């Protein structure tokens, strides 16, 4: 078999994944922390104040990366949920459920920082603008997935039910993304684009991209850490988990 495919198969085994994630975690946390610190320095010190919004535009540096992460985490959750539902892969179900609280945290930050930005810029904390409303629906979808997962006793059945809900909720993602184009309301349209030039000065752009990178790395670190714990719980009867207990705790006969 192709070595990459073989490795992928091996990664699906909980004890192998547990060790693999444990090895990578400190590096991911360190990378996220360093990039986050550099990005925040750029955001607060080197980026010039906006000519219209003054210093309030600096909220963008936490608001926009978190907004991107809210959508990215949902896509990651739904994709893993799909794989878990179709191929019954335990690790995919675990990864899907581990990304829900992280995505919810990012979406929550997006909504609150957006509110803090809206007050000085639009003169209101909240309005039922299309982007704001669909982002709130995204947060509720995360809550629904987390709630459903915890409402069912059997962990694997719970993960599959919640993954199914996550898949239905994917319909909200294009609504969040295109809301600023489809409905012309308060929220501004995107200034940074993957295709075509961004409408933002480079001195303002680089901290944003650095922070976006840092939050992506952080997301994967958090998902790996959460998955490790979930696998310990899921496989608590297995020998590899028993072997992790301190020696004094294991029974001797």
């Amino acid at each position, binding site marked *: 078999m192709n070595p990459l495919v073989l490795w992928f198969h091996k990664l699906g085994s909980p004890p192998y994944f547990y060790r693999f994630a444990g090895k990578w975690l400190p590096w991911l946390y360190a990378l996220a922390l360093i990039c986050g610190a550099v990005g925040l320095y750029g955001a607060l010190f080197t980026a010039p104040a906006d000519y219209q919004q003054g210093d309030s535009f600096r909220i963008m540096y936490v*608001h926009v990366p978190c907004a991107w992460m809210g959508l990215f985490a949902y896509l990651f959750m739904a994709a893993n949920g799909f794989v878990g539902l179709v191929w019954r892969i335990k690790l995919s179900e675990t990864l899907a459920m581990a990304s829900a609280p992280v995505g919810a945290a990012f979406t929550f930050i997006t909504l609150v920082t957006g509110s803090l930005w809206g007050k000085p810029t639009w003169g209101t904390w909240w309005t039922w603008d299309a982007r704001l409303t669909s982002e709130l629906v995204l947060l509720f979808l995360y809550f629904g997935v987390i709630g459903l997962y915890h409402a069912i006793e059997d962990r694997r059945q719970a993960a599959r039910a919640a993954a199914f809900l996550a898949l239905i909720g994917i319909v909200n993602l294009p609504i969040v993304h295109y809301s600023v184009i489809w409905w012309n309301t308060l929220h501004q349209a995107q200034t940074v684009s993957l295709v075509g030039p961004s409408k933002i000065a480079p001195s303002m752009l680089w901290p944003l991209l650095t922070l976006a990178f840092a939050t992506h790395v952080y997301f994967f670190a958090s998902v790996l850490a959460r998955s490790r714990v979930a696998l310990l719980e899921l496989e608590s009867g297995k020998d590899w988990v028993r072997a992790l207990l301190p020696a004094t705790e294991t029974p001797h006969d």
Partner: protein
Amino acid sequence: MTDFFAMHGYAAYVWPSYALFAVVLLADALAPVFARRHVMRDLARRVRRAASRKTP
């Protein structure tokens, strides 16, 4: 420096945003640490109980 902390009048909006970002992500990073401790303690207790049942 005072200018920096005042954010030219936007301090009340900028600083809470950055604080929320830091606090929420810190809480998210600590959650698996505590969850892991809880799971391992629970598991150790179960193993101990099973062992004491086996040796009367």
